[in-house]
């Protein structure tokens, strides 16, 4: 390992160092603000390093570990795909730090650990999006999950610990399943390095035998099932509402955005680098999971009375929309085999970013209302427009975004995902998606209605003073939602470049 390698892994490394700094700082100072502002300031470092790496990639300075001999050779990718996702994860972590400040005032006995664990998890996700080797990948996966389980349990209330335990058990199960799938892949190809697997499969499977296909088929389905847990897709979704309900709002927001991004990144990497050469009908499986996720997520969200539970089901539905894009990666050829396209993957990445902005806005609002009112029922949001007009307006805007109405980013994302699916003849899936968008409007708009519902009795209701840092976070994410809604092209261009570099297809 030399300086060059250190630079390549510097964003993830610096996040871990920041986590450690937070831990030490917590011991050194009792002032919570110092901790928050220091962490926040330091998080600009990985963002800056990521931006620098993107800049260097675009100027042709290829940051490929395989070009350097060392510990990480061929195992860790620094390309447009992984760096852009790493930046998204750091961004989500920074927003979470901003909205956590007020949430930690009571209930949490610990503070430093909170930031440390959250940043360790972020580092795990960053490893996950960059790793192209199975063992490193698995390390990233566990580093992502375990701190989250601890964070969920951090308040030590009964419901929190039970939620955390559920998360831990289901997480362990899915890891085991995925590990089993990886073992099959390794057994068949004899390598743990993902790009080399594809070469190995090509040489072995030049004549597709029944035997080879069955092995690969088992591997594919086990991996999809394992990732399905992280994606919170049906039928691996049942932990989501329970965990969302019992967890603290900032952590749940982080989980719904960053963890989802990392899981989709993993799925995309495996699909683009391995599945493309396997003669297995994985698009069908993904389509079915997508449809089931949308339907179950939206229908269940309609009957919820707890806002976090509702958003838990909403995130399941959004995993469904995202999986439409994944299914659309496969372009069916005339001989019913398929090749891989760029649009599907780029649309998923774009959706992840826009979904992150909108969802973080809502969870920021929830963290304030939840800590002020002391409850997460939808009825607690009544007349929010009177109590805190800024929050009510920004949350409504984010909800409108989640429906997918212009000029918000998710409108463009849905448009992009649906059009990618239409081009790949997944018309039925698009119809299911559009119908589900309409259904989802019901419960999103209902929440907006509640927030704007004022009767004269509570005209002298106490104002709800949102902390400045949380409001700032909401302004940033709202601006992001609008920005990607009106000016998506430049970002889509970057993502398309990232996907085509990842897959070698144009």
């Amino acid at each position: 390992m030399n300086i060059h390698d250190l630079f390549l892994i510097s964003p993830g490394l610096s996040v871990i160092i920041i986590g450690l700094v937070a831990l030490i700082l917590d011991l050194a100072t009792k002032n919570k603000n110092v901790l928050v502002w220091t962490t926040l300031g330091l998080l600009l470092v990985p963002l800056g390093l990521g931006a620098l790496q993107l800049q260097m990639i675009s100027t042709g300075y290829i940051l490929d570990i395989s070009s350097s001999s060392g510990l990480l050779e061929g195992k860790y990718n620094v390309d447009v795909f992984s760096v852009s996702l790493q930046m998204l994860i750091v961004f989500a972590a920074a927003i979470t730090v901003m909205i956590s400040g007020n949430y930690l005032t009571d209930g949490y006995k610990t503070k430093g650990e909170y930031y440390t664990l959250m940043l360790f998890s972020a580092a795990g996700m960053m490893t996950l999006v960059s790793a192209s080797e199975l063992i490193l990948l698995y390390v990233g996966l566990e580093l992502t999950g375990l701190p989250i389980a601890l964070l969920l349990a951090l308040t030590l209330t009964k419901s929190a610990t039970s939620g955390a335990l559920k998360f831990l058990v289901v997480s362990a199960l899915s890891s085991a399943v995925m590990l089993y799938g990886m073992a099959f892949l390794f057994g068949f190809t004899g390598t743990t390095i993902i790009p080399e697997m594809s070469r190995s499969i090509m040489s072995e499977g030049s004549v597709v035998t029944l035997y080879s296909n069955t092995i690969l088929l088992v591997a594919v389905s086990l991996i999809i099932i394992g990732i399905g847990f992280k994606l919170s897709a049906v039928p691996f979704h049942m932990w989501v509402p329970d965990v969302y309900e019992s967890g603290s709002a900032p952590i749940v927001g982080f989980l719904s955005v960053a963890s989802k991004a990392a899981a989709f990144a993993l799925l995309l990497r495996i699909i683009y680098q391995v599945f493309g050469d396997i003669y297995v009908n994985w698009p069908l499986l993904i389509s079915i999971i997508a449809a089931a996720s949308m339907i179950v997520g939206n229908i269940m969200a309609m009957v919820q009375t707890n806002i976090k539970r509702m958003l838990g089901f909403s995130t399941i539905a959004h995993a469904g929309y995202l999986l439409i894009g994944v299914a659309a990666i496969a372009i069916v050829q005339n001989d019913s085999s398929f090749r891989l396209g760029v649009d599907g993957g780029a649309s998923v990445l774009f959706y992840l970013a826009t979904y992150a902005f909108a969802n973080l806005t809502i969870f920021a609002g929830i963290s304030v209302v939840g800590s002020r009112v002391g409850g997460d029922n939808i009825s607690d949001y009544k007349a929010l427009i009177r109590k805190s007009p800024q929050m009510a307006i920004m949350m409504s805007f984010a909800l409108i975004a989640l429906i997918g109405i212009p000029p918000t980013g998710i409108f463009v994302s849905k448009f992009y995902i649906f059009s990618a699916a239409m081009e790949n003849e997944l018309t039925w899936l698009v119809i299911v998606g559009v119908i589900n968008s309409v259904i989802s409007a019901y419960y999103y708009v209902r929440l907006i209605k509640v927030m704007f519902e004022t009767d004269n009795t509570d005209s002298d209701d106490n104002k709800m003073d949102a902390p400045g840092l949380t409001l700032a976070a909401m302004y940033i994410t709202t601006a992001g939602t609008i920005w990607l809604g009106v000016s998506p092209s430049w970002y889509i261009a970057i993502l398309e470049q990232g996907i085509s570099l990842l897959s070698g297809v144009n």
Partner: protein
Amino acid sequence: MSSLTIWLVFLAPLTSFVIISLIVRPFFSKHQWISPYLLIAGLSVSLVVSVMLFLDTLYTGGPGYNSAYQWIKINDAAIIDLGTYIDPVSSTILLVVVVVSLLVQIYSMGYMHGDIGYSRYFATMALFTSSMIGLVISSNIVQLYAFWELVGLSSYLLIGFWTERPAAAAAAKKAFIITRIGDVGFLIGILFLINHSFALPLSANVNVLHIPDICSLAGTMSAMIVTIITLGILSGAMGKSAQFPFHTWLPDAMEGPTPVSALVHSATMVAAGVFLLVRLFPFISASDTTMLIIAGVGAFTAVFAATMGLVVNDIKRVLAYSSISQLAYMFAAIGLGAFGPAIFHLITHAFFKALLFLCSGSVNHATHTFDMREMGGLRKYMPWTYGLMLVSSLSLIGLPPLSGFWSKDEIMLSAWEKMLHGSVFEITIFALLAIGVVLTAFYTWRMISLTFHGEYRGNDVGDGHGDHSIHESPRVMIAPMALLGVATVLAGFLTNPPVNVGPIHKHWLNDFISSSIVFHHGHHAAEFSVLVAILSTVLGLIGLGIAVYYYKLSQNGKKEPLESMKGFYGLIYNKYYLDDLYENIIVRNILQKRIVNIIAFVDKYVVDGLGLFLGFAVKNVGHVLGLFQNGNVQFYTFVISLGGVIGLIILLMYTPGLGG
């Protein structure tokens, strides 16, 4: 000229809108007087830029297409971008819009003085003006469509400005719904265009949503598709320009404040339909069917609307029917291929009709009524208004040398030339347009006569000091009217003189309009024909003569001359019963009774049943699924495993070579 400068023409009034609506109205309600000044300042910036753009386009060809940025890329041949396209047509219309809007805003300062919604009025006007400017400079048809809807929205807000009046609210709703019916056609046209992009070869290198590209698109489509798309666009244009059968909203729209009628419902927004057709003229004209329909609709509406104008007693409604009729002349001209004269008439009409409306507002300011039966003899009290109204009326009739004469004459000339070597259709078109001239002259003079001549018949004399309480309007209203009066006199001859006059080249505006690159075979103005000029003047004088005859004889117009023709009078007085057809027969009887009954039946037994069932089902599915959601983690892992097994089975069954 940089693209930022071009956008400034749109951004300046938009900034006024933002400042007035978000800062002045909520926080400085004591200082409402500042609102019009903000808007006038914004429009002054627009005026400077639009003059620069016009001159730039006139002398150097102009900036043409400037892309601001790409919004959504549907495919390589269908890209939604935001941009400006400044060509002769748009730079000219832009100038007209800005000038008329600026003058109307100045007038509004006097007219709306003391209104409780003073700031709201100017905020909405600012929104309208910026949307209208955006519409004119748009380079992308989707962008244009967005502004098209925004002007519709501002029109809705302005018609219903006096929200406390039920009639205004109803009129706003009517305008919104009827124009929306037309807009659905426009939207379908756009969707067909997008659909066509998938059929284009990669090498075509066009963007089917880019307006200059659309103009050259007809060759790549089947004639059928061209007709469908052009008819869709036409339906949007007909709705906006209030052409038969969508015309019924415009007379009702007169419920809005009079300056709104002047700006939105005569000079600019209703002319957007004509603008759209000219903007896409090469594409529209590729379909013979569509062109025939445009010409037919135009000629028919020209006469049809004019007849209704003969008998209404509301001065603004006379002008509304007149607007419909004059817009119909422009439609007819486009249908005959003469887009240059259509734009020319659009310009002159914008000036003289805005002036007519402002005059009627001035009359209303004095008498507090729009009913001409309660006016009369006003010329004694309001000399300026009378003089300006007379000039603009004579221009509307089309008497030389006023601007209306030159533009209407060019349309008549185009129709005449078509007729000379045309069939029955062209002869009918010309005959209808000729009849329209006579009718126009008649209702115009009837309006002048009832309002300004004879004796004052009103009883609303305000403070009880007799007729002397009726007074001329304040200078802030008269001054913009006078400026429009100057434009009304000069705009025709100076822009399209029939011969070279000193430095002014003959037909320069027409040649300029036709020089836009999208019109591959520029339309050259027909040479001025003395015969046609005399003919159309004589026709106007005939109508004028009849009106003078009748309204001198029948004392003060107490009895309408047409009332003796009972059947016909009843027919036109009731607007050909079209409102009744639409509202009573189609909406109430057919839609509500028949169709709605069926729908109600279906709704009650099928939809409600289904809804109840679905609600029941969703709730219970929710509950049943909720049972699964029992918080039991062992169960969750069981479901995951089961799901895994099912997934594996699906893969086994549907992977080729194995099971499927």
